[in-house]
């Protein structure tokens, strides 16, 4: 099979008709792999109107973009998207397929791989082509981030999902040329077994967590919802957003959409202030890409101090108000 399958295909996830950040990251990673293989980089984009996103994908490095346009595909639906993708993969016959480790990515990738009778690696943080075998080396964190594993598969297509913010996009080049191929796929909405009745967006005020340059995150040691108000005040002062560890979310102190970690959001701000967070591997999986981590924790042995650039050992209740006052003063200077 590996003789007939060629090239790298990425799944081009979109938000509101534009390429999602993860898709630009996949194009960056995919371009490098395709160049190494001296093969094509293609993208598949599924939606109601994909023309703008298709041009974007070319500017970010795709040689060819396959689009599936249908009014019924305006929003993600597992079965319809999987069937469109299945058709695209049959046509393109890629050797490598990359998805984002996002909700659509973790839904589509395993089913697609099993359908094509191949194995896959989820949540990869590094991808490379082995010089001798020309196979894809898939590096992913395992054991909650305590270890990394490098996997390889013998069967094509080689499928992987890639962690958000783990790969860099190329600089956008609006003059880059590429081909857009519209695929005619029959979309049978009547055959759908899982119907989306409602989409409930939890209201987020201010800056989105994934986009924030500064994140103030609270953990189990916050011991209740009240402390998060203080974190929010500090976040507003520093033009940042509030995040949380899983125990804080599971306790209901703060909405689960703020969860940072292996099964929550992956963030990479310039500054990540971890307040009363012990720093489990699962949590660090979500924030270890931050430029500077600051830890405030009363336990000097807490794992977070192994990951942080700056730390204060002590009770956040005493530290936070004084910190906030001083930050305010320094910002106003």
């Amino acid at each position, binding site marked *: 099979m590996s003789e007939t399958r060629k090239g790298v295909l990425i799944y081009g996830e979109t938000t509101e008709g534009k390429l999602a950040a993860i898709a630009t990251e996949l194009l960056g990673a995919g371009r490098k792999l395709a160049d190494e293989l001296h093969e094509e980089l293609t993208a598949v984009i599924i939606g109601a109107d994909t023309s703008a996103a298709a041009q974007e994908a070319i500017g970010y490095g795709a040689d060819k973009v396959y689009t599936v346009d249908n009014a019924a595909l305006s929003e993600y639906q*597992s079965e319809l998207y999987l069937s469109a993708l299945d058709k695209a993969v049959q046509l393109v016959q890629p050797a490598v397929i990359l998805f984002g480790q996002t*909700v659509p990515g973790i*839904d589509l990738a*395993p*089913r697609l*791989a*099993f*359908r094509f009778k191949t*194995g*896959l*690696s*989820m949540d990869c943080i590094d991808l490379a082509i082995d010089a001798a075998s020309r196979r894809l080396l898939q590096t*992913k*964190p*395992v*054991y*909650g981030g*305590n*270890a*990394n*594993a*490098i*996997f390889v*598969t013998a069967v094509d297509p080689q499928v992987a999902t890639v962690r958000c913010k783990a790969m860099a996009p190329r600089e956008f080049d609006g003059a880059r040329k590429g081909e857009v191929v519209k695929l005619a796929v029959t979309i049978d909405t009547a055959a759908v*077994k*899982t*119907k*989306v*009745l409602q*989409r*409930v967006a*939890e209201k987020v005020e201010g800056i989105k967590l994934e986009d924030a340059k500064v994140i103030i995150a609270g953990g189990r040691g916050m011991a209740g919802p009240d402390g998060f108000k203080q974190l929010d005040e500090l976040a507003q002062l520093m033009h940042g957003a509030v995040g949380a560890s899983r125990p804080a*979310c599971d306790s209901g102190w703060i909405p*689960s*959409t703020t969860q940072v970690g*292996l*099964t929550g959001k992956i963030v990479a701000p*310039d*500054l990540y202030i971890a307040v009363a967070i012990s720093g*489990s591997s*699962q949590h660090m999986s979500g924030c270890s890409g931050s430029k*500077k981590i*600051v830890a405030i924790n009363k336990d000097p042995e807490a*794992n977070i101090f*192994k*990951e*942080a*650039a*700056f*730390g*204060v*050992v*002590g*009770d956040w209740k005493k*530290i*936070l*108000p*004084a910190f906030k006052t*001083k930050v305010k003063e*320094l910002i106003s200077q």
Partner: protein
Amino acid sequence: MNIIVCVKQILDPEAPPASFKIDPATNSVIPPAGIAPVISPFDEQAVEAALKIKDAQGGKVTVISLGTNLLRDVVKKPLSMGADELILLEDPAFGGGDSWSTAQALAMAIRKIGSYDMIICGRQAADWDAGQVGLGIAEIIDLPAVITARKITAVPGKATVEKVVSNGYEVIETSLPVLVTVSNEIGEPRYPTIKGIMAAKKKEPVVWKAADIGMTPDKVGAAGRQVKLLKLFQPQRDGKCEIISGDTPEEAAVKLAQRLREAKVF
């Protein structure tokens, strides 16, 4: 409502990070001394989700676990929580498998069970964090699937699942049978009751070997893998944290703000 739940016995993910050790010669994790394995936390939450449906609708919850050296005290926990039956796919031949070979075996066992309305799995096991087995089973058996559930309710013939997405959740209605994977947002699993523990003690699990589910040795465990592990290693951390101290916590806080400003961090 007949529900099948797949659970995995794993090394305790809550074990202290310092106890985590790798044997580079075998590319495997050395089980930490004195720390018992557990059911993967998302899988315990899958059991909880099944029991909630049983509480509301009645029916039967069957738990399947695949592995080698399955400790009865560990894998019987779902029974003590209230599950009705435990099937163990326990055979040395299952050792060293990946998501592919595991999903194939679980799908065969589910086919052998025959009748069910729903299959529930955790979103990923907290050891390899692969996150594929649930959807793999759905693909093999050709079932619809909903991932990352935070709530499942079911009535005869259909279920409603709240699926966690990045900015909130979706309410999805699905026909049955369906496969659902659960996320931590579904809530804490219940504690076993004394009555439950006593009942679980008396219940013996059904044990199926590879041949019992119609699988040949070349299709299971290490022999049936699709994905080859080349290397397992612990990432290096530089671990240079500059600790800012002061005579009082307030003083330390002020110095931290000054230091961060100096370093142009904000």
